């Protein structure tokens, strides 16, 4: 049972409050939101900041984690929330196949080199689409939202994992100011 103490130590080291490993199907995501909400409602945070944390979690769960419809029983995603000196960090990790990896890599590269103004225009043009949004448009919209809400404080990296599959980790910081 030593892992219990080890996990606690690891969590405490980086101030992680919560770690969830799941496939984040929709029923579950509701519970994830309620758990995050209760965590942040304890702090005396600004409405703005609370909404930002909440929305980043929602977008992570709905558009980054829960995309593996083919393996919906496997728990291929992870979500962590931690408190840092300046505010909160939301960390999301998910397993990707090659196709999605290429797509997200392209979207992330493009977004991270865009100005806020560009991102807002891009968002406007995506939501103005009159037909239902495609997967890549949904991901794009979610990531743009995270960049805007965090004022660009997004870090990400792709880490190689057994053969074709790869693991993407995105870390979003919502500062208290």
């Amino acid at each position, binding site marked *: *049972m*030593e*892992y*219990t*103490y*080890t*996990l*606690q*130590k*690891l*969590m*405490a*080291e*980086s101030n*992680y*409050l*919560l*770690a*969830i*490993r*799941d496939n984040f*199907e929709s*029923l*579950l995501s*509701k*519970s*994830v939101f*309620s*758990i995050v*909400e*209760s*965590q942040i*409602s*304890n702090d005396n945070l600004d409405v703005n900041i609370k909404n930002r944390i909440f929305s980043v979690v929602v977008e992570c769960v709905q558009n980054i984690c829960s995309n593996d419809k083919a393996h919906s029983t496997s*728990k291929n995603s*992870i979500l*962590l929330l931690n408190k840092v000196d300046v505010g909160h960090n939301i*960390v999301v*990790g998910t397993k990707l196949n090659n196709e999605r990896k290429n797509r997200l890599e392209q979207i992330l590269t493009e977004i991270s080199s865009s100005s806020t103004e560009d991102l807002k225009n891009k968002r406007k043009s995506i939501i103005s689409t009159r037909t239902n949004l495609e997967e890549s448009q949904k991901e794009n919209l979610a990531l743009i939202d995270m960049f805007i809400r965090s004022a660009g404080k997004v*870090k990400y*990296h792709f880490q190689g994992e057994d053969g074709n599959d790869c693991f993407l*980790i995105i*870390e979003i910081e919502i500062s208290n100011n």
Partner: protein
Amino acid sequence: MDTSLKQIHSIMNDENAVLIYSGEFNQDIVKSMLSYTEGKLESSGIDDLVRKKIFNVMVEQLQNITKHQYTAEEKQVVQPCFILIEQENFYNLVTGNPIHIDTIQMVKDRIDQVNGLNAEELKALYKQARLNSRISEVGGAGLGFIDVARKTENKLEYAFFDIESANYKYFTLKTQINKIIE
């Protein structure tokens, strides 16, 4: 990217952990852990009876954590935690919290006693403990162990780990709830 994240993820994978909470426990946190687990069980289409059992055991275990009092200084050293593990045929609820060395022997004795009894004997002990007002000594934790043992029908696993504190150790308790009731 920080290495503890990688380690946490890999331990979660190895141990089949689906949820870890590490931090202060209060009524709100307990409530949200419960509602998360409920939602999870609901979506997995598990038997209602098993669901109720898990819920009850979780309440006992989590409230057991909130009952333990420690000084602000000890809190800095180590936080309580809750881990939910999902295996193919059962769930494990694991709690960890600092415990004062003076109460370790008593907790050990209680759990060992509970683990040594069969269902019939547990029932009798439960009745007796209920009547016995002296359970308040341990904040009702004694009754909690009996209750948990009765509901899970499995032995309680526990361990104490040394932490950087002269007066406290880290107490971990693991219960197992089978997905299928025989």
